[in-house]
C-alpha cells in the first residue's frame, strides 16, 4: 500500500516535470481517460478501506486498471486459502463494471472451476436494481468479492451447480472437497 502510493507520488512528480520540459503530452499515451481519473480516486479509497482478509497487488503501478485482489478468508469453509482474483477495469468504466476472474481453482457455488464469478454488482445488465451501477466504486467490488466467502455465499442461486448440489446432498463431503481444493490449489 505504501509502496503503491509512494510510486504514484513519484510518477506524479515525474509527469509534472515532463510537462514542464515538453508542453505536448508524452508520446506513449493520450490524455488521461475518464476511467483513469476515476481510478486515481477510487484506488486509494479502496486501499484504505480494504477488508482485513484482502490485499491488492499492482504489477504495474502505472496501470491502475489491472491488478490482483488476494482474499485469504479468516473463517468459513475456505479459511486459510489464498484466492487470487484478477481485476480488469475496461476503458468504459464506470458505465460498465470491472471484469473479474478467480485465478485460483476453487470449489464454490458462486465461482466456477474455470474462474467465472457470480456476484450481482459485477453484472453488466440487470433487470432489477442489483447489478452494476456507476454509483459503485472499486472498494465495493473488493468488499463484494471478500463477502463471497461469508455473507454473500449463496447456495440457492449457484453458478457451479454441481458444488451447490454437493452441499445440499452431503455437507461434510462438500466441506471435505473444499478443504482438499484449498490444500491443493490455494496454498502458496
Amino acid at each position, binding site marked *: *500500500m*505504501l509502496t503503491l*502510493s509512494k510510486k*504514484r*507520488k513519484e510518477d506524479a512528480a515525474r509527469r509534472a516535470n515532463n510537462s514542464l520540459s515538453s508542453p505536448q503530452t508524452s508520446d506513449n499515451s493520450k*490524455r*488521461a*481517460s*475518464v476511467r483513469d*481519473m*476515476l481510478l*486515481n*480516486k477510487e484506488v*486509494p*479509497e479502496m*486501499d*484504505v478501506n480494504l477488508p482485513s482478509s484482502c490485499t491488492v497487488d499492482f504489477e504495474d503501478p502505472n496501470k491502475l486498471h489491472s491488478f490482483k485482489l488476494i482474499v485469504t478468508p479468516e473463517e468459513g469453509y475456505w479459511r486459510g486459502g489464498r484466492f487470487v482474483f484478477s481485476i480488469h477495469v475496461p476503458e468504459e468504466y*464506470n*458505465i*460498465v463494471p470491472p471484469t473479474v476472474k478467480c485465478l485460483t481453482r476453487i470449489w464454490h457455488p458462486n465461482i466456477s472451476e474455470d474462474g467465472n464469478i457470480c456476484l450481482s454488482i459485477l453484472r*453488466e*445488465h*440487470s433487470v432489477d*436494481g442489483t*447489478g452494476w*451501477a*456507476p*454509483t459503485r466504486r472499486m472498494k465495493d467490488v473488493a468488499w463484494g468479492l471478500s463477502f463471497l466467502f461469508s455473507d454473500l455465499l449463496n447456495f440457492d442461486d449457484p453458478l457451479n451447480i454441481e458444488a451447490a448440489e454437493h452441499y445440499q446432498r452431503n455437507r461434510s463431503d462438500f466441506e471435505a472437497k473444499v478443504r482438499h481444493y484449498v490444500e491443493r490449489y490455494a496454498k502458496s
Partner: protein
Amino acid sequence: MSDSQVIMKDETCSTANGKSGSMESTKQDAEVKPFTLKKWNIVAMWSWDVDCDTCAICRVQVMDACLRCQTENKQEECVVVWGECNHSFHNCCMSLWVKQNNRCPLCQQEWMVQRIGK
C-alpha cells in the same frame, strides 16, 4: 496516501474539513465573546450532509462540466439533465448510462427526463 485522501475529501464536499474548521473558529470566538452565540446557529445551519449536487456518475458537480467534457475540452457543451425522480446528472454521463440500463443510478426508478438545461 495522505494527498489522495485529501482528494477524496474534496469529492465528498470536504465534509470533515469544512465542519471542524468552522466549528473550531466559532468556538474560539465564543470563548472570547460569549454573545457571538448567533454565529453558532449559522454554522449549524450549513447542513454539510446534504447532497451537494454532485453527478453520481462522474462525481463532478453538475454545475461544472463532466469529467469527460473536461478531458475533451468541451466544457461549453456540457449540460445538466433532471429526471422525473428529481435526481440530476450531467446529460453526457446519463446518456451513456441509459444505454446500459434505463434506470436512475441513485433511486433505481425508470429514467424519465424532466428537463435538460444549465
